């Protein structure tokens, strides 16, 4: 149960990254329209919330679950950011549509 919750957090963190202008651009290698980003962001928050619920069910103690959740979701966000970084740096296969390869800056 705890493992499922943490996988959920990882997925949630990736969705949050997709919902961020720069993060989404890095992951999908093209700009993501704002409406989709909002959708991804909300889904990400929902998944994080569901993970908290799952941890409360698994741990049986609210404080145990809250500490585990706060710590693991933070680490999940860092992993998501690292994923964005890797994706951002990886060589891009040249396709006709791909004109912007680097980050926005």
């Amino acid at each position, binding site marked *: 149960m705890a493992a499922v919750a943490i996988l959920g957090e990882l997925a949630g963190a990736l969705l*949050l990254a997709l919902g961020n202008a*720069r993060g989404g651009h890095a992951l999908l290698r093209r700009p993501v329209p704002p409406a989709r980003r909002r959708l991804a962001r909300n889904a990400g928050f929902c998944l994080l919330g569901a993970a908290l619920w799952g941890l409360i069910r698994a741990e049986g103690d609210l404080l*145990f679950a809250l500490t585990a959740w*706060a*710590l693991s979701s933070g680490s999940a*966000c860092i992993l998501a*950011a*690292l994923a*964005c970084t890797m994706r951002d740096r990886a060589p891009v296969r040249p396709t006709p549509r791909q004109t912007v390869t680097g*980050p926005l800056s």
Partner: protein
Amino acid sequence: MRPGFRAAMTWLHDWTGILTGWVLLAIVLSGTLSVFRSEINVWMRPELAGRTADPVRATIAAIDWLHDHAPRSPAWYLTAANPRAPFTWAVWQQPDGPFVQHALDPASGAPDTIRDTLGGEFFYRFHFELQIPYPFGRLVAAVAAMALVLALVTGIVAHRRFFADFFTFRPHKGQRSWLDAHNLLGVTVLPFHLVIAFSGAVTLASLLLPWGILSAYRGAPAQFQDALSPAMAARPATGTPGTLAPMEPILHEAARRFGPDGIGQIYVYNPGDAAATLIAIGGNGRHVGFDSHVLRFDGTTGRILADYREHRPMISTFATLYGLHVARFAPPLTRWLYFVCGLLLAAVIASGLRLRTLRRRRQGKSTEAVERLNAGMIAGIPVAFAGYFLANRLLPATLPDRAGHEVQAVFTLWGLMLVLAAALPSATGWRVLSVLAMLALGGVAGFSAPWLNGIDQGAAIVAILLAAGFGYAASRRPAPGGRAR
């Protein structure tokens, strides 16, 4: 938010960070290691590998040994054996004042079979006492904790743009990369950082702000401690000699009342006196708060004098904050997350120190001296701490005051690293110290051989990962606008 406010908060963030950064780095790193205090205790006593201990039996053996070897001591403080640590940790006061501490064998109760070392207790003590005499070390740590709270809160204002850049880390871009790393690590684990900083101050609160206690208790602050944990209050010695009651029924009664919590600590006050008192404290691995179930026994008759559980909401709040900091409750996953987040906090502080020098260099100011000291601290502390683990395996087992020599090794190494860093140009210094850190950590991984149990494997994996990090730092080409001059 008006610009003046943000500028003021940025100024405050910078200066708090610079003035307390190095102290905080040492505190955070030793605190992070303290998360695995029990595991380090076992790693540093390979004699105990594979042994298990029954807490009641081991405590009886320890009390029997102390009864023969320290009968005139005013107090024995025992931490009972538990599944994480198969030995009794005993601290006792000698009649003339100084404290002695030893790990006692779970079967014989004697310290002789186990090498003399402080183990993880060194990191735990250093974390809030900094090897400075009482109360100054604790005051420095308390002020540093408050400064960390301040730096974190002002940091939210100073780096308020982080949400726009949240999910990107742009490497190889000099100052930009350091800022990204600082923000990313700082923000994602911010709740942990805030809680750990504030609760750290809470653990030292009565020392930092004694005024409420002094005024409400009219200069008798000991009464406050008694009121906080009513069952722990000891009786004064009568001066008439007495004999301790048989321990077995007392400890079995304590174990029965504590149930699944198990026995945490046993304190015996005035063991040779007619008014001997035995305090049994329940383990607190099953709830977050630091408030345990406490029993007080009459030491000579074995009668129960008090059975206390905390129910006052305000004291429970305090105990919960305290418990969140010391993390006795943490199951393995949470414990590892505490460890990782502690390392991340150290990384936030180190990257903040680095950012500061980069920004000043960009403004055309000389930063060489600070850079050298940064190297001596950021890479030097890991070398010194790894050196503690190495000294544990390298010093001969029969050396007199072995535990003291291990601790000396840490500070000698740290001093050497600082001297080395100060003597070399900063870019070379970084590289040399990183290589040394990599070698020392590699040594720790090697001494964890034969990697049969979870503790050795965990120690080796952590040491190898950190060594890889330092190896990467040493091999890196200076980034544009970064280390190159």
